[in-house]
Structure formats: structure tokens, C-alpha cells
């Protein structure tokens, strides 16, 4: 049985924030402008992004509120009433509450009665886990519709006060600052149905490959600054001590990041080998990694191996909407479809790399027209 993506919605909080305004919102650590900011922004290419906190660090939208706003936009464009949704499948890197699951808060906000609920746990690919579980549930015939809602509120982690509480500038390095200039806030929603509706997308397949068995953590929250200390945040007597040790900072091991690009290629090659992916048939490639990561030797190899996707088929809104982690791919497809870029018969490949402990996910969609 096929599953169709029949509606999308996105929500980005507040006005777009330019590169020069970032520190007005996130704050200056110990009153000093960052020395790494310009270099990191140049490398990620992001021009504007949105934050759900204001300049006084007050939260303007909770994570669940953004999720609900995106879900409502998605449902507003569909005749499917919220109360008839069979499954609500949610993802976020970090909910407003530690527990219960993020999905519970989203369900409450949407007032969907007696729904089957799922909250997936992880970082960027938690979105794909939520989408796949929802699609599979429709394939099994358990429901006729499933709403996938993914939201991220990273800015609360990136406030200057977080870094000051963890030892300030003296304790900061490239790895702890990297994501401060990368991540921002937003939410996206997709409605999945067991029958096509108008022009919609058929979900052909969703596959992912995790490599946590082979590689160490590349991006995470919970481990202290001292790499010789094997404790994680809850092992400290108080949360204040965990924070002081840097165990609540979000960190990226930038040296290991190169591996992410290679594993992204590895996954695509596995799919080609398995016969499910035919690169030449792809009309649109959506990836929340900027394309410049795939330049140089790896691009040359892919070109020679007949496995590269020409630049004019890439679509991203990373540079204007920011990197919203798990929500990125939903927000990206929403804008792609609203721009009217999809034509019947087009094949779309979405790729979601998660550097956390190296998971790569791929979605293959085909634009179809429902017969009246």
C-alpha cells in the first residue's frame, strides 16, 4: 500500500535575524564579540535565521507552540480535520519539558482526541524516524492519516549566559562555539494519507544507516568539557555542577564532521548498489547540508563514478531559514512545494545527515496527481 504526503506547513518564529544581529539576540559572552563567528558563518553560508527568544532572552514561542503553529498551517491547507488524525508522530532534539514526550505537548496544543502518539528521540534524523513510523503505520492499514510534526528550539541553548555558567570564554573552544553560529529555531509539519489528494507526493521509500557502532559522538549535549571525565550530566550531584563542568553545552567535534559527508555518500552508494536509488532519475535533491561540503575530491569521485547530482537540481533554504536541525527537511520541502517547483512525475530525493553519532537518512518521493 502506498502512502502520500498531501499537505505541509512550516512556522518560523519572529523576524529574520541577520548575521550582524545574532549576538544582539544570543548575547555577548562576557561582553565580548566572538572571534570565531565570522569564520564559522562564512563556512556555513547562512545569511538569516529565526529565533524563538527575544533580545532579553525571554522565550517568545515554546517549542510545542511552534510545533502546533506549523501543524495548524499544514492542516489549514487540507480538508482533513484535526480530530480525524489517526497518528501524531513528533520529533525534536529537546522538548520544553524533560518528560513527558514532546508529542504529548503537541497533541494537547492541537486538541486531537485519542490519537496514537509517537515521540522519537535523537537529533536531525529523529524527524525521519517519525516520518517513517507514521508512513509504516499507514502502510499497515492501521490509520488513514498521520500528522508528522517536528520542531526545534536551539536558541535557548545558545544564550551567552549558558557559556558564562560553563566557565566563560576561558572554557570555550571552536567545538563548543561552532553550533552557536549554526543552529536556529523553527517547526515543520507533514500530513501523510493512505490515498492521494490533488497534486501530492508519493513516499516511495525511506531508508537510513546508523554508524554509532564505529564512530564516537560527534555532536552532543551531556558530556563535560574535560574529555578525560567520563561522567554525563546527571552523574553530577547537582545540575548546577553539571552546567559548571560544561556538561550542558551543545558541542560539535568539528574534526569528525568530515566523516559525516563521507557517510552521506556511503549511504547513497549503498542505495544505488541495492537498486533502489537511480541518481540520474532524480529531478530535485533536498539536503540540509550546504553543497560546498560536497566539493573537491569527493565531488570529483562522485562525478567519475556516475553518482553525482548536478548543482541545478539541489534545493535548499538553509541560507535564509537557518539550520533548524530535525525540522529542516520539513521546512525545506514546504518551501520547495509552495514555490511551485514540483511537476507531476518528478522524483525528489531528500537527505538528512545527523552528525550526533553518525546517522544518515534518505527519503524518495514522487510527485503524483490524484485521479478525480
Amino acid at each position: 500500500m502506498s502512502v502520500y504526503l498531501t499537505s505541509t506547513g512550516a512556522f518560523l518564529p519572529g523576524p529574520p535575524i541577520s548575521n550582524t544581529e545574532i549576538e544582539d539576540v544570543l548575547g555577548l559572552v562576557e561582553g565580548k564579540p566572538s572571534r570565531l563567528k565570522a569564520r564559522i558563518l562564512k563556512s556555513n553560508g547562512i545569511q538569516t535565521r529565526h529565533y524563538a527568544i527575544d533580545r532579553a532572552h525571554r522565550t517568545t514561542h515554546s517549542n510545542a507552540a511552534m510545533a502546533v503553529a506549523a501543524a495548524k498551517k499544514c492542516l489549514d491547507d487540507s480538508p482533513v480535520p484535526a480530530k480525524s488524525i489517526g497518528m501524531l508522530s513528533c520529533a525534536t532534539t529537546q522538548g520544553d519539558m524533560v518528560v513527558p514526550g514532546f508529542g504529548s505537548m503537541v497533541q494537547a496544543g492541537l486538541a486531537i482526541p485519542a490519537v496514537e502518539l509517537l515521540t522519537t528521540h535523537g537529533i536531525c534524523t529523529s524527524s525521519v524516524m517519525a516520518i517513517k513510523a507514521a508512513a509504516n503505520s499507514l502502510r499497515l492499514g492501521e490509520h488513514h492519516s498521520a500528522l508528522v510534526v517536528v520542531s526545534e528550539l536551539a536558541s535557548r541553548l545558545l544564550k551567552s549566559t549558558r557559556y558564562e555558567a560553563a566557565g566563560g570564554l576561558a572554557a570555550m573552544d571552536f567545538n563548543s562555539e561552532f553550533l552557536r553560529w549554526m543552529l536556529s529555531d523553527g517547526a515543520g509539519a507533514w500530513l501523510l494519507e493512505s490515498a492521494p489528494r490533488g497534486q501530492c507526493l508519493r513516499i516511495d521509500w525511506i531508508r537510513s544507516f546508523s554508524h554509532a557502532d564505529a564512530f564516537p559522538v560527534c555532536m552532543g549535549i551531556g558530556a563535560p568539557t574535560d574529555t578525560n571525565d567520563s561522567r554525563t550530566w546527571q552523574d553530577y550531584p547537582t545540575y548546577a555542577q553539571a552546567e559548571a563542568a560544561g556538561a550542558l553545552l551543545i558541542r560539535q567535534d568539528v574534526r569528525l564532521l568530515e566523516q559525516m559527508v563521507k557517510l552521506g555518500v556511503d549511504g547513497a552508494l549503498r542505495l544505488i548498489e541495492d537498486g533502489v536509488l537511480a541518481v540520474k532519475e532524480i529531478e530535485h535533491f533536498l539536503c540540509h547540508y550546504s553543497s560546498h561540503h560536497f566539493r573537491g575530491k569527493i565531488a570529483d569521485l562522485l562525478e567519475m563514478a556516475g553518482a553525482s547530482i548536478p548543482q541545478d537540481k539541489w534545493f535548499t533554504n538553509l541560507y535564509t531559514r537557518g539550520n533548524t536541525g530535525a525540522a529542516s527537511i520539513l521546512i525545506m520541502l514546504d518551501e520547495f512545494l509552495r514555490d511551485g517547483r514540483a511537476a507531476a512525475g518528478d522524483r525528489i530525493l531528500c537527505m538528512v545527515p545527523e552528525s550526533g553519532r553518525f546517522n544518515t537518512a534518505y527519503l524518495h518521493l514522487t510527485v503524483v496527481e490524484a485521479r478525480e
Partner: protein
Amino acid sequence: MSTVEIKRPAALSELGQATLRRLMREWFEFERRLATVPIVRRLDLGTFTRSDYQGLLLNLRPQVVEGSRWISRCASSFDRDHADIRSVVLRHAHDEHRDYEILEADFVATGGSLEVIQSQPKNPGSDALHAFLMFRAGEPNPVGLVGAMWIIEGLGEKMAANWASRVEQLTGFDGRCTRFLRYHSDSDDSHMDKLYGLIDRICTHERIADDVVRTAAVVGRLYALQLEEIEVGH
């Protein structure tokens, strides 16, 4: 055929492309396996020590010394119909046949003794790797060894791009101690062009492509074994 020089082709045949994709997959498998080898994991986690580095050099040297031998033997196993391939391999043998002297000097620069590194026997992984390469190199027209070059040259580049500065950062050793690791950073493009050329030249049949990929897989496994064995002997 034999008078033509091997160079980068405009495009690879379908079989050449498929072989390159399979070789990339073998490389990624090799990197996955490398990442689980304790000494490499310590490099990634930042717990790699000075004695780890000395152990690495001690255990690499025997294979590097022998490396020039298998490449030379490989060159001599190509007949006149494969003279163009032989030229590439001969040049390669010439380029690398005294690499071990750089490695020895690096070890001495870290405070190690020349006598110690020169008397270090092969570890079991090095023995297996060397035996396999010498055996394959002795076969007539051993085109499958392009798969070995793919892994070994790839590792050379990885050492230069990814390991050398990390080793310096974690151990405090300076550039005089890491010249061997950095040695392969030059002429990346020409290495790749030569590899594309070789793949184009030899991948004329599915059976040959399988041989190249299989050889890459075996060499990757045995190279990782050589690095795993550092723990045991150290």
C-alpha cells in the same frame, strides 16, 4: 596499447563507474573499521599519547620497508601487453622505496632509538598483509592490486590530512616527528587521475572488477589488523 600512457579518462565506462562506486564503498568500510581500532579511537577522542605515537611508528615500519618490495615485484609481473600499467607501478615503486628512512628519522625525533625501530619485527597483522601482497604481486599481470593501491594510497592521504596535525596537537611533537604521516599530502590530484586511468584501463570485464574490489577489501582488513595488533605488542 602498451605505448599509450595511462592518464585521466574523460569519463569511465559503466563498468568503470560501478567499480569506482564499489571501491568507494570499500574505502568507507575501511574507515569504519579503522575508527574502531583502539589507537585510532584514541586519536579521535583526544586521549592519544606520545607512547601511542611511538608504538604506531614502530609497528608501521616493517610493512613500509616491505612495501617497496611488493610494488617492485608487482611491476615485474606485468608482461609486455601491460607495459603501460608497469610504467605506473615502476614510478610508484621508485617514489616510495625509501619511505621507511623518513619514518625512522621521525621515530628518532620523538626520542626513540634507531636500533629499537630497526630491530622491531613485523606484528601478526603486518605479516599477514605483507604475505598477501607478495603473493598477489607474484601472479601474472596482477591487476587486482589496483585495489590495494586504492586503500594504501587513500590511507596515506588520510594520514597526511587527518592524522598528522592531530598527533602533533595531542602529543606536543612537532613537524620534525610527523614527516612520514605528511609525506603523502603532495600530488593528490595526479594520484587520483592515475587511479581513474588505471580503473579505466583494467576494468574491461566483470571478473577483473570483482578482483580489484576483493583485493581492496582484503588489504583494508589486513591493514586494520596491523593497527589492531599495536595494542597487543605494545
